[in-house]
């Protein structure tokens, strides 16, 4: 694809067979790799395989300038990924596209509506007082992940429940898990439960407990009819009952309890500690919203108990609210001296409070490692999602229609290819064989590489990509035409085939490289700049342009060299496409060339 270089690749002229063998080996290797990897068809994009595709665009918010950067986008992808896969969705795909878009592809057969609801919204982050907490073990009939642990209901079990078998959900839990802690503070904790979750929140003390949390009279589902209890008071019987039945190891249950919760109501929730054990909670109404956290940082504490900790800065309102809640919680018994940091309905951390914190600043210490601290800081400072997203487009595609489109595209491609072949045969006759063989090699390479790119770089063949591939037939065929025309021009000058083939090549090569470079440049620019469907198209175009060069250099040219030795072509058979008579070479011309050529001022092999 580089600028044309002269005099390169003399070797191919000398040993065409070797080059051919090389490309055939490459082809066999690619095909072998394809079968070895178990992917024999290209990964189909959502528009062909069916499913839902959601495009989210990051929005710039006032006071959040420069927030749209790579780190934040990646964090957002991470979080959205956890959310979508937390639905029990398998193979949902979240990826950034361009600098400010996130594409979420949810394969067919999942609850697209629910996913849609979860994906775009900025996560809900709340600080809720803990009313009750227990390690959660599978309840009777809990289907998933409960190997042998058939303990009755909510009886605290000393044996950790093995993580739920559902992989996606495990991932989901990781977030909470990260903030989990390895009991360093346990001694300091007045906790009587055998948990290792406690973490202290320390800062200046000021005491001004006020009842907070406006009571809500909005109707709610399930656990809501109860009058709002005092945040730290006894939960309603209904909640108690729900709490007792709660089995956090069941992902379905976890998803269910997240539905319809309101910040103003006490809720039950689940959270995972650092040992991958689920804890269940009754939480009071939200006292502080995550929005009130201005900033949170993971810092390395050099004094005192050296280690990573998370510091938070609250807004004015937040500082007051936080002061209130910590004041209330400070004197209580564990676990009621803890507050749960709840993201998207799941408790990610539940530090305990030693004193009221009113300075508008607080820190959570414990034995974090760096990643854990950073994760928690991220969650705190961004309200989980670092950016606000807007739903740009939602596409649901049924596999039936997608398949039909693919079929139509393939039929169209096949017909297009057939037309091209017919045209080539009609015009180039025998030479068309070489063109067709090259097109075949090109197609095989494209197919195998696309297939292999599926698992490696998540390349998915979507409809625009199919279009790109079909259009590429023209680009590929063009290279042959350039070369063939050159050869014919050489023959018109009276050369025999073998020298003609060699002399035509450097010129044709130059033209092919220059024009392919322009094509590739267009594809590359489009790929870098654009998003979504356009990008898929550009990728295919770029790939096929590259392959075109490979095929012409390593297949067409050597094959042509070999064919030039065959009598059929060399003798200029009527059907070879190289018949001198048909090409307009006449003996007198040849004679005249011989005599006058030396006088020619211009390079003799113009065309």
């Amino acid at each position: 694809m580089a600028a044309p270089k002269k005099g390169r690749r003399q070797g191919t002229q000398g040993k065409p067979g070797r080059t051919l063998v090389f490309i055939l080996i490459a082809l066999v290797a690619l095909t072998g790799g394809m079968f070895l990897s178990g992917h024999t068809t290209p990964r189909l994009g959502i528009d062909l395989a069916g499913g839902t595709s959601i495009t989210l665009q990051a929005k710039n918010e006032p006071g959040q300038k420069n927030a749209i950067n790579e780190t934040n986008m990646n964090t957002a992808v991470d979080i959205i990924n956890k959310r979508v896969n937390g639905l029990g969705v398998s193979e949902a795909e979240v990826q950034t596209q361009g600098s400010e878009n996130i594409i979420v592809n949810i394969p067919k057969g999942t609850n697209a509506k629910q996913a849609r609801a979860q994906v775009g919204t900025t996560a809900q982050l709340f600080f809720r007082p803990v009313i009750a907490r227990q390690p959660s073990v599978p309840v009777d009939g809990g289907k998933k992940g409960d190997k042998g642990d058939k303990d009755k209901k909510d009886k605290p079990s000393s044996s950790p429940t093995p993580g739920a078998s559902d992989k996606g959900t495990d991932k989901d839990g990781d977030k909470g898990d990260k903030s989990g802690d390895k009991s360093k503070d346990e001694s300091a904790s007045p906790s009587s439960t055998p948990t290792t979750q406690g973490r202290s929140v320390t800062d200046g003390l000021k005491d001004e407990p006020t009842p907070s949390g406006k009571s809500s009279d909005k109707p709610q589902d399930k656990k809501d009819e109860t009058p709002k209890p005092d945040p730290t008071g006894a939960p309603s019987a209904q909640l108690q009952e729900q709490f007792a039945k709660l089995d956090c190891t069941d992902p379905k249950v976890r998803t269910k309890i997240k539905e319809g919760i309101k910040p103003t109501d006490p809720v039950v929730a689940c959270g995972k500690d650092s040992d991958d054990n689920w804890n269940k909670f009754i939480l009071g109404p939200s006292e502080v919203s995550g929005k009130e956290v201005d900033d949170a940082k993971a810092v390395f504490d050099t004094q005192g108990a050296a280690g990573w900790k998370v510091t938070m800065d609250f807004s004015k309102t937040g500082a007051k609210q936080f002061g209130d809640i910590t004041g209330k919680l400070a004197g209580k018994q564990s676990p009621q001296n803890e507050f749960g940091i709840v993201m998207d309905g799941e408790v990610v951390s539940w530090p305990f409070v030693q004193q009221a914190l009113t300075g508008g600043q607080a820190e959570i210490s414990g034995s974090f490692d760096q990643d854990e601290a950073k994760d928690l800081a991220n969650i705190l400072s961004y309200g989980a999602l670092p950016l606000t997203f807007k739903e740009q487009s939602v596409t649901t595609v049924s596999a039936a229609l997608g398949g039909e489109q693919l079929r139509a595209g393939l039929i169209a491609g096949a017909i297009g290819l057939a037309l091209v072949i017919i045209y080539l045969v009609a015009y180039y006759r025998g030479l068309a064989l070489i063109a067709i063989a090259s097109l075949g090699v090109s197609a095989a390479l494209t197919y195998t590489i696309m297939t292999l790119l599926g698992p490696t770089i998540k390349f998915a063949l979507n409809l625009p990509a199919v279009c790109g591939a079909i259009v590429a037939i023209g680009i590929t065929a063009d290279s042959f035409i350039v070369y063939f025309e050159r050869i014919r021009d050489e023959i018109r000058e009276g050369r025999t085939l073998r020298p003609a083939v060699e002399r035509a090549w450097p010129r044709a090569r130059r033209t092919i490289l220059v024009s392919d470079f322009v094509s590739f440049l267009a594809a590359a620019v489009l790929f870098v700049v654009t998003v979504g469907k356009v990008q898929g198209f550009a990728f295919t175009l770029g790939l096929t342009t590259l392959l075109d060069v490979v095929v012409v250099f390593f297949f067409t040219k050597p094959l042509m060299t070999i064919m030039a030795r065959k009598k059929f072509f060399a003798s200029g058979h009527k059907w070879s496409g190289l018949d001198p008579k048909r090409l307009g070479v006449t003996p007198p011309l040849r004679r005249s060339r011989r005599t006058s050529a030396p006088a020619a001022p211009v390079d003799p092999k113009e065309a």
Partner: protein
Amino acid sequence: MSKLGNLGARLYRGEVGYDFVGKRKIWYGISILITITAFVALMVRGLHMGIEFEGGAVFNTPKTSVSSATAEEVAEEASGHQAIAQRLGNDTLRIQISGVDTDKSDHIKSELAKELDVKADDINADLVGPSWGDQIANKAWQGLAIFMILVVIYLAIAFEWRMALAALIALIHDLTITVGVYALVGFEVTPGTVIGLLTILGYSLYDTVVVFDSLKEQSKDLAKQTRFTYSEVANRSINSTLVRSINTTVVALLPVAGLLFIGGGFLGAGMLNDISLSLFVGLAAGAYSSIFIATPLVADFKETDPQMKALKKRVLAKRRAAAAKGESEEAPAPDADATEDTEDGDDTAPAVVGPRSGPRAQPVRNRGRGRPSGKRR
């Protein structure tokens, strides 16, 4: 085909040829006319923007016998917005409703499913915010600008700045024509259209570059001779690559036509159709512009170069001298201007550089064949 092959040979030798460069004014005129038409169409009629640019939802249903009017009614009732339903080639329906949000789209979908007696899951819904298309378009413009800058730099290095400039003008010309056709005919502009339009970038230039490559070669030692002006050489290179241009255009258009007429016929409106339609128009425009616009432009630019001006003078002077000398023996040898304006492509021998530039390519070459007129027929 053999005739075509022969034609190729004669084109190659410069025995036949169309005087593209000489008649450039006609083609410039046509192009300007087309461009103006395109602009007027764009102003007056505007582009028919697809739902992706306006915001709304598109539903694609499976095969159904329900009429489009009924479907329209159902959709309008469910959405409260105006709906356009189209029956596609394969008995499926495409229903387009603007100003629909997520919740409504689900509602409409289930209503439609009920009416059509199909599963809601089998109805494709494409829901887009108004800014989605804009964003694609913006990115496309951005890509276009970056590409143009890069390609001009590249062409300026690989060839020369005049060619780069001409190629750029030809490219803009192609895009204008394509957009104009869209405005005139009223095809819907969708992201697919944008994709197609962007592909024209590479393709239009591909064609141009091949001609330029040949031109660059043929004009390599131009200053050292006095037989041909730059314009004549340019014309020669167009003619000598004409067969290739025709072949590649045909070969490029065939698969696209396949996509357009067959793929489109199967499915009616859709991504395949959108892409292939704009490609088809753009490819045709690209082939036209590389032959009729880009290369003549290069010739025009180049003729302003002092060196080339001097060359032209020398060539003309020499020709006049030759003509004066040979006057008695043969018909008035065509002088350069006359050649450029002659209708008959067959006697433009002096206007083109023969491959071997042997005697045949010289004004007097035909003497030996006893055709005093200079025509070889």
